[in-house]
């Protein structure tokens, strides 16, 4: 079965865009609209990969990553950050929180696919 990716982004258009371009590349997609929702969905769908935005209401991406990593069951799940941010400070923070990689928005579908394969074969 194809890989299941959970995308977390508070923007509906971004979620749809991700879904459209990743479905086209053969992935199955589940979505959540903020960090809290994302954490719940992690438990429900147990994705092969988590792609999360950083700036979101309720629980931001950093908090989500930390929460996911704090759960024993997701230790081996790769997490990619997809954000318009690109500062080293933020990237370091994400890595320290437990992110596997960082992709800067806007993304090209092809490069996004390559980035995913880099962490999730």
């Amino acid at each position, binding site marked *: *079965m194809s*890989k*299941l990716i959970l995308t977390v982004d*508070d*923007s*509906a*258009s*971004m979620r*749809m*865009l991700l879904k*459209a371009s990743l479905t*086209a590349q053969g992935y199955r997609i589940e979505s*959540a*609209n903020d960090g*809290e*929702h994302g954490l*719940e*969905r992690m*438990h*429900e769908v*147990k994705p*092969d990969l988590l792609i999360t*935005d950083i*700036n*979101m*209401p309720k629980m931001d991406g950093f908090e989500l990553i930390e929460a996911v*990593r704090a*759960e*024993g*069951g997701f*230790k*081996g*799940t*790769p*997490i990619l950050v997809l*954000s*318009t941010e*690109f*500062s*080293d*400070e933020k*990237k*370091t923070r994400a*890595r320290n929180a*437990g*992110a*596997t*990689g*960082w992709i800067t*928005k*806007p*993304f090209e579908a092809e*490069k996004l696919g*390559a*980035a995913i*394969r*880099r*962490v*999730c*074969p």
Partner: protein
Amino acid sequence: MSDELDEIQAIFFEECTEGLTVAEEGLSAMQNGDTSADTIASVFRAVHSIKGGAGAFGHVALTHFAHSFENLLDAVRGGKIEPTLPLVKVMLIAFDTLSDHVSAATGQADVPEDADMIARLDGILVAGGLSDEDEGLAPAPSAQAPAPDAAKASEPSAEDADPFGFEPVTVDIAQLDGDKGGPADWLVRFVPGNGDLANAGEPLLVVREVETLGGEIIAVDLGDMPGLRDLDTESAYFGWTLRVPGTVEESAIRDCFDFVSPEAVVEITREEGAVAMAAAPELPDVRAQVDPAGDLDQMLSVVQSIAEVTAVASPSPGTDAPRDVGTKYPDKPSEAVSQTIRVDLAKLDMLLNLVGELVIRNSILSDRLSSADQQRVELPELARLTRQIQDNVMSLRAQPIRQAFSRVPRMLRDLGAETGKNINLETIGDTTEVDKGVIEKIGDPLTHMIRNAADHGIESAEERIAAGKSPDGTIRLSAEQKGARIFVRVKDDGRGINREKVFAKAVEKGIVPADAQLSNEEIDQLICAPGFSTADTISNISGRGVGMDVVRSNVEALGGRVEIASVPGEGTTFTMILPLTLAILDGMIVRLAGQRFVLPLAHVIETIQPEPGQVKRTTPNNEVIDMRGEYLPIKRATEIFGLNDDRPIEDSLVVIVESDTAGQVGLVVDTIDDRREVVIKSLDQNLHPIRGLGGATILGDGSIALILDIEALVASPTQTRFSPKGMAA
């Protein structure tokens, strides 16, 4: 795909609108002194999201501008820059530019000139706040020390060391364009850091990716491998050296290492030359490492244990990756999070239309059944359910009127800049829910009313001070629901309507005869007469060739009306009275000169059959009815519509209706046929609007009946007199 993209983009634009509303609310709150972290964060997030989406959809100018704005907001959010009042004002102007950019992205406007604003935002960021000069009248310039690194944070930091991975490597250009037979092969050395396994990273995948570029492993570095006792299964010990064809772009190789940790070693060099050759001797031969035969089994077990780690690190769907479900959030139902769903408005409209048809069919069915059958429980039950469906569909279309109000603050800022008047805005009841169709259609009338109030109503600061008022004008925008109607008011504290001037102008324009005797209220209404404009000089604000008459006709087209109340020296209130829904009406079916009309039941007080002598003629054109000692004016709709009606009043019925403007009035009708819920169908735009008619409907038997607009019908009879063309049929 492109259709799908268009659809997603449409949603993005909706999000932009929502984001702009949030940002503006936040900035307004900041202007009023609320600089809490949550407020600042909400503005930041809104701008940030707009930027993110804009980038995804390729709106370069919007992205660029939002980027500068976002950087400044980020610095404010991080406490690097103090959100002083002057700074918030600058950000409000930046917000306006951002709105213009969004409009441009949607194709509704040209791309705004933003170079100055970007320079200003970037300048503030570099300086760590507004300069003293910019602070201008600021009571307390920010005492905050300038944050020198704020500027640095704003630039893409390509030159800085990237924590995700790689240090710059200098490549000798001479090697590139060197020689025979194309560029030399790349030598890529990769030694993962410990962090690369910790975050579910998989260095092996990076190696595989380099292999897809044509790379082949020429050496594996096991030099760091500790003895078995010290082996940490979550640490990385291997290093690889790969040879990649020289024709591959260096950036393509670099991309593979995008996610490796900062402590990882990534070296990419051309094979020729000292650097590449120097690296080679450092790589021990794998076989040399495992040479002693006794160690071989140990080594195998080490490799296996590492293989296990990597298997856990990247579970494939088939394997049993740890599935111990955390207990932290198990009992929260998943429905709780998806409380909203976006629906294309066209689908809602279609649903509404279908429900309307259902209502009509229901009444047709009811007509065809015998009265005994009509009493059976099924039919009333069906009618009740239909009504419930209808109410629900209507509520789906209800939106807070805030959406219509949202563009007012911007407009007032622009108007303030154009007129030099400082105008405060008070908003009351902006959560009042109204049909989306109404919200969309009141935008233009509202804009005009606000412009009118700002331009004609509010005086200049000098004039206000002379009149003993505060120099700043105030416009109060309010909405409230009363019964099935929504009242939207624009109240200014300006000079009020100059009735002498209005009357003189109306006479000059030939709207009323010079000898007309008009009450104050009637004079006020003249503002809404077609082609009326009081401004001596046509300003570019409200004198655009369309006047308040457009407001009136727009509002009337919605089945509403406009009221004007003015107190000289104290201000003017424009009130739009609108129906809550545009679709359904509880009506009384009456006959006028043999034709059927629908009279909205909401207005009906009682119905009487007049006794001889109960109706009296006071003047040749006016009749009254004696209602238990109280005299109420009588209107004959037949006269207003020009229908032939010779029926004596004693053979007619008088329906007493209550109106907002004229109080109780008796309306003469032939007979009352029925009471029915009707679905309002608007009259075609091509038809000349007839005062007194609000729309049409299809009755149970399939015939068409016109719907009476009671307010317009009973409103001042003088209207028809002073505006012969346009207002009366």
